[in-house]
């Protein structure tokens, strides 16, 4: 595809997504249970149908595999956009499940899907026995397809038969535990070079993109609010302290997005250079998580009391920031990963490590 056609295609897909997501955002917000005791956010069937009709769950696939041949930045941009509107949508999860299925040569997912680990895939007669539990599976109760990666990299595509124990994260998104104890026949499994660590890294990549999206949503809301809300006879936006808080949020939001895009660009090398992929993801998830920790309280600060109410649409974004920063590795976990990798190379190896070009400076 030439640069200009891919640019206009990118813009068209982003515009289409933006229209769809902003049209459905109010309805998704209205559907959030008023009391925590009322359970998780409900499944939004019309939203999923619309997303599926547009082919978004296949966005990461090559054209030959049924996708659009989009670059990963554009494809994962859809995850970011959906997150900016706090939509209940396992879009990134399904995209990645399809990516792994396509790589493993298995049939693509039916309906919403997710990648899981923690479940063993072992020979049982002519078939494969799946046994074990996968924790914190996004929208587990709503999934039609589950893609398991076991410790050896074997992939299994499963269309049902698991037990679901319901749970949810701080934002009320379903995070369920799926218990497996069943036998599938041979054609639904395949060997691959993926590993549970890489699957976790893929999850961290989409969380980094989603965090960037939620941060962009928060920033947009804050800017609108401070331009509109008047105190002391002036819009809040006129006060320098407010301007500086917005600037802090904007710089961190930009960094979260830039980091997430940096990691997205490494996605095509996930199997050819897994260490580099995980390094980029580690930096992205850590940076986005830190931005979330800084921006969520500032967003509430500039909103005053209205911002902490159930009926004002800030909490769906800020509670997602607080939930997602811990999912697929917190800042602490990824700092540990990067620190161990860096320190192993010693101080002379640090700059070569950062630049990816060997050769000492001194």
């Amino acid at each position, binding site marked *: 595809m030439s640069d200009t056609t891919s640019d206009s295609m990118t813009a068209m897909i982003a515009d289409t997504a933006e229209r769809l997501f902003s049209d459905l955002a109010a309805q998704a917000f209205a559907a959030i249970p008023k009391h925590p005791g009322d359970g998780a956010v409900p499944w939004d069937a019309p939203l999923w149908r619309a997303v599926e009709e547009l082919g978004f769950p296949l966005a990461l696939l090559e054209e030959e595999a049924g996708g659009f041949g989009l670059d990963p930045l554009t494809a994962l941009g859809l995850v970011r956009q959906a997150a900016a509107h706090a939509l209940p949508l396992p879009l990134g999860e399904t995209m990645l499940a399809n990516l792994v299925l396509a790589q493993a040569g298995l049939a693509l997912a039916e309906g919403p899907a997710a990648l899981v680990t923690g479940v063993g895939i072992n020979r049982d007669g002519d078939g494969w026995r799946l046994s074990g539990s996968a924790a914190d599976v996004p929208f587990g109760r709503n999934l039609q397809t589950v893609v398991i990666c076991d410790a050896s990299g074997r992939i299994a595509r499963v269309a049902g038969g698991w037990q679901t124990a319901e749970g949810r994260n701080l934002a009320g998104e379903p995070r369920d535990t799926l218990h497996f104890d069943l036998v599938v026949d041979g054609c639904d499994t395949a060997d691959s070079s993926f590993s549970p660590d890489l699957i976790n890294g893929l999850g961290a990549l989409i969380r980094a993109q989603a965090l960037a999206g939620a941060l962009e949503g928060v920033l947009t809301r804050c800017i609108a609010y401070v331009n509109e809300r008047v105190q002391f006879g002036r819009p809040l936006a006129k006060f320098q302290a407010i301007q500086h808080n917005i600037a802090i949020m904007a710089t961190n939001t930009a960094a979260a997005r830039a980091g997430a895009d940096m990691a997205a660009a490494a996605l095509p090398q996930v199997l050819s250079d897994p260490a580099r992929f995980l390094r980029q993801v580690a930096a992205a998830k850590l940076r986005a998580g830190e931005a979330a920790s800084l921006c969520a309280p500032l967003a509430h600060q500039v909103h005053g009391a209205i911002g902490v109410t159930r009926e004002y649409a800030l909490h769906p974004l800020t509670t997602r920031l607080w939930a997602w920063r811990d999912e697929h590795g917190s800042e602490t976990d990824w700092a540990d990963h990067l620190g161990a990798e860096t320190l192993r190379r010693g101080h002379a190896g640090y700059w070569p490590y950062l630049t990816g070009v060997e050769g000492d400076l*001194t």
Partner: protein
Amino acid sequence: MSAIHFPPPPAEIAFPELRAQVRAFLRETLGPAYSPYARARSWTGFDAAFSQKLGERGWLGMTMPKKYGGHERSDLERYVVLEELLAAGAPVAAHWISDRQSAPTLLKYGTAAQREMILPRIAAGTCFFCIGMSEPDSGSDLAAARTRAEPVAEGFVVNGTKLWTTYAHKSHYMILFCRTSQSEDRHGGTSQLLVDLTTPGITISPILDMAGEHHFNEVSFRDVVLPKDALIGQMGDGWAQVTSELAFERSGPERFLSSFTLLTQLIRILGEAPEGAARRSIGRLTAHLMVLRHMSQSVAGMLARNENPMLQATIVKELGALLEQEIPEIARTLAATAPAHDDHQTFAQVFARTLLAAPTFSLRGGTREILRGIIARGLGLR
């Protein structure tokens, strides 16, 4: 969405061969005797002989036309050379301003005679510049500058005082921002002049910083007569010309590598397998550096494509200064060594130098408060 976007950096920014060449040159030129303490000066270390060697190697004026002694290489290649020099803590201060700011200004606005006379010398690493913007009563508020250049028959007569002028005492020229006429508009009536610092009537007085180092100066002008052809660009366009320099000034690798020597020294003393908190702190700093490099390279790409990344450049400088200032504080929590200049330990010395330089990181090139105001305005708040 109102967020500020950083497009992906150009793929070719890796330039592995060029990086390897610069590293080999640095190992050879600086040698093992060039200590971490010297490297910790970062881009404030002055060494005219080093600048000349860099010029001979073709790594100054890299993007300038060949007819002015330049090398017609890409902005991205130049970026890679800068980054390697800074990471090594090479003494780049002598040519830093002339290569980064003065040459592009002269190339864009200078007369043919100014370009022919000066640009080849900048590319050779033998002609150094300083910036004459700040004054006693004009810091963040640059438009409050009072230094006047009175147009007269033979040219201009300059009176006034410039302050904080980095390395004026070792420079050949200054690009002076001053008033050349009365104007209702605070930004109007200003111009940029090329000042030969040997002109009679100019007094350069040292100002020592708190570490006792001499880089700052006060430069006073008393009835200094400059020729007509000292004018750079158009009379009265000084404000527009000066502000167009800023994207180049704010986004480069110098905005996140000022504390880099301290960070590598910290990694050295921690050893290869330190306990958890130390490991995680280094990992965290690494993540920040990776993302900032990515953002800075994104701006380099925008500059190379002649886009205007003013807001992105401002963001890089703001986040970069925060990181550079955090590094000494983190070093302090991980290493049980107090900062001291005359300690026999390399780490203590590097720590001392970086700690005392750190407050300037959010002052020079636009203070943190001014940058945050620019970002907020860019998002429509005013």
